[in-house]
């Protein structure tokens, strides 16, 4: 065959808008007003959680722990914008401090989910076979254990403290995440780009961390976002039942429980923390919905 004239055939393409995948998701997220509303509220909540102690120092709000029995169940006033509780503590300040507990619980627990559930899911999914079988049976057994019972046992053995509550909630919810990740990895590892990575000489750890994890990140983030309100709610439930955060630390669950004693006379004692809890949970759910819609069409052509 005659040597064909070799010339560089430079492809002349139109410049497509150069957009990263996350940028693209953010653009879609921004077009969803409800999700953006949720995000704004959560940002405000986070600022509140960060700076609430500072506000107390500068006397903008009252000390949430300072009792004044003479002033119990006070109505709204300039001094106490939302009134006081049965021990005369400032309701606004306690609600604002309650966000600290809720957010900390929400985020810490997700971190535990991610580490435990993520590791188990990735390993089970990637290695498959007997490893997968063993891990998944373990997950099944773990899943079969009643959540509340598990927490009550843990708390009664170790005494309720912030740390114990984190651990107890964190150790029950990871099961769903590990199943999600395992499923994702199972389908991803059949994709040609994973085989391509192996052909390029990449080992298991590199394939898991460089290829599988980033490609499951979308669903993971969505799942974790939905996990936050669930954890917050669980903490509130535990605190309401009296096995959660030990008093006097302000937690929305405890406040609802306290307010319950006088719910007919002073309904706002329950309404204020309940509303805070509800709006927070809704906000996270809205963000989760928005993220899911924004991240989903990522495999576009």
């Amino acid at each position: 065959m005659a040597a064909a004239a070799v010339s560089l055939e430079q492809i002349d393409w139109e410049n497509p808008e150069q957009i990263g995948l996350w940028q693209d998701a953010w653009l879609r997220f921004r077009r969803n007003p409800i999700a953006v509303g949720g995000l704004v509220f959560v940002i405000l909540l986070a600022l509140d959680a960060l700076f609430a102690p500072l506000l107390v120092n500068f006397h903008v709000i009252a000390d949430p722990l300072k009792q004044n029995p003479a002033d119990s169940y006070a109505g709204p006033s300039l001094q106490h914008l939302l009134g006081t509780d049965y021990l005369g503590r400032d309701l606004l300040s306690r609600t604002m401090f309650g966000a600290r507990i809720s957010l900390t619980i929400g985020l810490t627990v997700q971190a535990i989910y991610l580490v435990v559930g993520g590791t188990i899911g990735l390993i089970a999914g990637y290695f498959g076979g007997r490893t997968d079988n063993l891990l998944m049976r373990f997950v099944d057994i773990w899943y079969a254990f009643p959540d509340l019972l598990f927490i009550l046992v843990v708390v009664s053995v170790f005494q309720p403290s912030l740390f114990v509550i984190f651990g107890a909630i964190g150790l029950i919810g990871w099961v769903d995440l590990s199943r999600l990740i395992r499923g994702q990895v199972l389908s991803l590892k059949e994709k040609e780009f994973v085989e391509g990575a192996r052909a390029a000489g990449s080992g298991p750890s590199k394939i898991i961390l460089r290829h599988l994890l980033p490609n499951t990140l979308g669903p993971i983030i969505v799942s974790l976002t939905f996990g936050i309100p669930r954890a917050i709610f669980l903490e509130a439930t535990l605190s309401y039942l009296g096995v959660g955060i030990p008093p006097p630390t302000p937690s929305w669950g405890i406040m609802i429980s306290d307010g319950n004693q006088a719910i007919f006379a002073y309904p706002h004692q329950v309404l204020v923390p309940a509303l805070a809890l509800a709006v927070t949970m809704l906000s996270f759910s809205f963000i989760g919905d928005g993220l899911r819609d924004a991240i989903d069409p990522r495999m576009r052509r």
Partner: protein
Amino acid sequence: MKVAEAPPSTERRVDPVILRVDNVYKHFPVGGLGGGAVRAVDGVSFEIRRGETLGLVGESGSGKSTLGRVITALHPASGGHVFFEGKDVTKLRGGKLRQIRRQLQIIFQDPFASLDPRMTVGEIIAEPLDNYGLARGRQRQLRIQELLRVVGLNPNFTNRYPHEFSGGQRQRIGIAKALALNPSLIVCDEPVSALDVSIQAQIINLLQDLQREFNLTYLFIAHDLAVVRHISNRIAVMYLGKIVEIADRLDIYDRPQHPYTSALLSSIPVPDPRREANREPIPLKGEIPSPVNPPSGCRFHTRCPIARVPGVCSEIEPPLVAHGRPGQVAACHFAGELSARSATEAGLPSA
């Protein structure tokens, strides 16, 4: 079963054997307690010489893609050996396997699934370079750009993501990645079947140019016999996990020995209305059987127009032995009979 010794032919054949596939099996267990298995590849043997292109054709379910993955050690073999430059790929593990992989690359069918959507083009091409520590820093950047230029892409687009490219461009990226390790054999698994017609020619020409430029050996897997015949020196035809015929690219069309090859060839339309007016496809009975439970004897006997059933075809499995021209092998008890018959009956081109 052994492949018949191929006698030295008139052309090439001086080149040494680079890949020898020896009685390879790949069975996938079927879930459930029944304990059956999909016999995707069921005893396949052939050789590829350095610098040649062996085409591997077959319809869906023939096991051709699975075979490609066994050869590149992406799937472990269930039995048999794959000797690459004398070393048995199926027996290697760890570091030794990694060293062989440098020489043994693969290009995939689906340009949309074969590139990690979360990585930039630069990262994708750098991955093999980094794995083997072949280039660092500025050297690495230069190498990536050279690879992009070699496959006809703009070297400045290393920071772009795969989704910003068209199918043909992505296939070029996949080729650049396969070239990065300077391999000697590349398994091309349906590299053009997902592309638009006008783009297919670009990629086929590119693969041919690269072969000449870098002295590459190809195993070219495709269902399109026309494309395979265009690019290959020799062609192997697979049916239900077995190779039924291997022949030179000229002989396969002029003197097919296996009735399945004849049927396949007669089924392909050609862009020539006058020829099409006379082309009469050899009809095949029924459907391709399940690879879980392949037919007894010759696997093709259930669909074969010339099978003696009941008789030798449904009872005895024909070995892959020399038939027809030098170097040609076929697994049929009545090799050559159909092509001789149809050449006279249906006006199929002979010689």
